[in-house]
């Protein structure tokens, strides 16, 4: 399969040309989190290198360093055998690095042709449609979009077309190192084929590709070699031919988090929350599950798997298309957030800056925001009761009680998350829904958040956690459900799962065997 690389890069090692990208002993620290710990990484000319690892393993940090968004603390980077400095991003671009982001940089109201010249250097100040369109047609042909009318506004394109347009934009800059960061997460099957075919073609042209993904079938169809990151450290690259799914999973596992998870309690028999046949946008099949008092149900899957669609729907943020949900035997209306909140559903979103905290407001106001009515009479807030209650919560979550007047935006990510979770305690919730509860949170705050969730369980609360972090799900949950591309695959008690099985299910499915390999190439 990887014959292109064999011819251009010399897989066997004899008289190898210089590496396109060589990274040695690179380290990066964020606060008290060691994101990269002296990693090595290499990329040959014309090679597709899959970069794998669990969330938090350091993949995105490496991408950020190579694309010039952040600066490494130590280590060396060579491009074509010469030492290179890739910070800031202008230098990285000049060195030929280009990243295809999950968030696109196309302007929806402008045409395809215009987007292809937007922000590019060396473009004449007068844009004549004829020239622009001719130029666009050439570029579009390079990424398999030759059927597209360059005058079409970008907002009419499909997600895959936008992604390929993004690639075309990067090719203008003569990018030699292309980084794809989970390009297929939001794509349908057919569209994935097109993106993969284009990537193959790019590598055949001699460009090098770093392919970051969580989907193993794509790795075996596309990559020449595989590098696995684990806990901020790198394993030596392996040829994709030598590997199979089991071997890759074995390489990825081994993150030691065991001690930070609190012990589980016992479960009641009668379920607290019954979800029957729930269907919402982002789900391909109805989902049914039960949450008992004191139980933590973990839903895990990658971006677009449907796990967070379930949680958002239960929170009243995503209107359900079908299904019935009962909380404590009473039907729960998922029509609006206000309705679910009144019924005792707390909801902690994945992106706390966007919709989890009021960054500019004091901690106390953040903590009391969902329950301020409870410490009020006839619309008057009792300052004393608000203070007492927010102090209690702050103390439970180890937030400095003396600082309740400080703005939440000034806190560390971990403390912000503690505020985002802690504020719901005051509502005496029956069910707590959490998405990615520890994303961007340091180890210490993680352990505290896990412990508090368990404490809540012993008080009879039911918890649903959606997380793409499989080790977190495995360590924290009583019951675990796996999701893959809009479907709930399996739901089992935690002791019937191994991390190996969990990772396998969320990254890979049996009916997508690597056998179909080469057919997408054109």
């Amino acid at each position: 399969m990887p014959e292109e690389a064999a011819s251009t890069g010399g897989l066997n090692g004899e008289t190898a040309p210089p590496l396109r990208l060589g990274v040695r002993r690179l380290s990066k620290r964020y606060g008290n989190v060691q994101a990269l710990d002296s990693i090595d990484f290499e990329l040959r000319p014309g090679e597709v290198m899959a970069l794998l690892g669990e969330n938090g393993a350091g993949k995105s940090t490496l991408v950020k360093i190579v694309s010039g968004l952040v600066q490494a603390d130590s280590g060396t980077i060579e491009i074509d055998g010469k030492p290179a400095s890739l910070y800031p991003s202008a230098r990285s671009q000049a060195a030929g690095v280009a990243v295809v982001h999950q968030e696109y940089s196309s302007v929806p109201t402008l045409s395809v042709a215009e987007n292809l010249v937007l922000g590019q250097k060396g473009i004449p100040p007068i844009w004549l449609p004829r020239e622009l369109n001719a130029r666009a047609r050439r570029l579009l042909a390079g990424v398999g979009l030759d059927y597209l009318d360059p005058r079409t506004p970008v907002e009419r394109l499909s997600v895959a077309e936008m992604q390929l347009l993004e690639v075309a934009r990067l090719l203008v800059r003569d990018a030699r190192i292309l980084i794809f960061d989970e390009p297929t997460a939001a794509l349908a099957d057919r569209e994935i084929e097109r993106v993969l075919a284009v990537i193959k073609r790019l590598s055949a042209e001699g460009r090098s590709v770093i392919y970051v993904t969580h989907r193993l079938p794509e790795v075996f169809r596309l990559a020449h070699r595989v590098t696995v990151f684990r806990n901020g450290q790198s394993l030596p690259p392996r040829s994709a031919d030598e590997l199979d799914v089991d071997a890759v999973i074995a390489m990825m596992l081994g993150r030691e988090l065991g001690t930070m998870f609190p012990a589980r309690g016992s479960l009641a028999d009668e379920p607290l929350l019954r979800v029957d046949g729930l269907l919402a946008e982002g789900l391909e099949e109805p989902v049914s599950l039960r949450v008992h008092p004191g139980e933590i149900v973990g839903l895990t899957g990658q971006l677009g798997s449907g796990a967070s669609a379930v949680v958002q729907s239960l929170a009243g943020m995503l209107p359900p298309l079908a299904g019935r949900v009962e909380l404590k035997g009473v039907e729960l209306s998922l029509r609006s957030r206000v309705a679910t909140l009144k019924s005792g559903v707390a909801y902690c979103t994945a992106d706390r800056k966007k919709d989890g905290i009021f960054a500019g407001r004091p901690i106390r106001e953040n903590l009391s925001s969902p329950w301020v009515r409870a410490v009020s009479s006839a619309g008057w807030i009792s300052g004393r009761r608000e203070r007492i209650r927010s102090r209690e919560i702050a103390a439970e979550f180890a937030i400095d009680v003396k600082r309740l007047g400080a703005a939440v935006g000034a806190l560390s990510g971990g403390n912000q998350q503690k505020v985002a979770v802690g504020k719901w305690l005051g509502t005496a919730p029956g069910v707590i829904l959490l998405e990615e509860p520890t994303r961007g949170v340091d180890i210490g705050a993680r352990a505290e958040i896990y412990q508090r969730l368990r404490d809540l369980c012993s008080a009879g609360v039911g918890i649903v956690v959606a997380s793409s972090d499989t080790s977190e799900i495995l360590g924290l949950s009583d019951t675990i459900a796996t999701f893959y591309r809009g479907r709930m695959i399996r739901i089992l008690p935690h002791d019937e799962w191994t991390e190996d099985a969990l990772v396998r299910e969320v990254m890979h499915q049996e009916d997508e065997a690597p056998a179909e390999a080469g057919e997408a190439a054109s």
Partner: protein
Amino acid sequence: MRLSGAVRLPEGRVWDWLPLAIIIALALAGIIVAVIITPSFLTVDNIRAILRNASIVGIVAVAMTPMTLSGNFVSLAIGQSAMLAMVCFVALVGDGWPQPLAIIVVVAGLIVVGVMQGAIVATGLNPIIITLAAGAIIFGVVTEITGAGIVRTGDYLIGWGSGTVGGIPIQVLIFLIFTVVVSILMSRTVLGRETTLVGANRATARISGISFTRVTILAFVIFSVGLAIAGILNGAAFNQATSRSFPNLTIDAIAALLVGGTAIQGGHGSPLRSAGGALFIAVISSMMVLNDFSTGGRLAVQGGVVVAVVVLLHELRRRREVR
């Protein structure tokens, strides 16, 4: 959880009081300069005049603060709405209505007009454009009905409008009471808290079960009450009104609010600051009047101060958020 020393400062509180402190400092500096170069500044009459000038603008700026706090920017129909209240009040009294009844009707009418705008804004439409259009409609309707003429109270002269209570002009007293009431409303009630939170982050507020629609409409109600009070006070003081009353109120009230340091994006600010802003502008104006500044000079200085303060506060806020 380890908390680094640098973060231990109570930035929240410093931030809350910094703009007000700047305004007070500026106002004090203005007064000191005024006293030095204009000996007549510190006379009782002049102070009374300053306060009287600040009152109408102050009431409206204070009333608009909840709207701005909730993330709905400002209204461009301020002058026209206050004019509506003034014309209606004068016309009703001139028509022989008892004053308390006229007051109730005017306040209720203004609330209806305000809620209509608020309901449109609450759907997510741009408040600036909506109020711009609403102002034009109000102006057109009132001018059409009054025939562009003067409305008078005629035989039913209202005496209390230019009166004083214990030496304090009635407007000033009402300004004071109104400021206190709205400040308490914003700082002590659930409504006030929700208003600020919606302005601070609408998405988080939604997840916390706070309704943007309700907050927006209530903000327009408070605003309308303030506008009605301003119109009634001026009606009671002058016993006549035209559709051209309050020509500068829109600009003055927005200037007071912005100079007071309420963030136009919402989430930061207080009615107290807007009141301070109104006083500050009144002090400057008075100083310039006493020193024979022309209309142009005063407007230019007022505009310059607004730009300067707004930029200063914006930069302070940005520095703080970038950290």
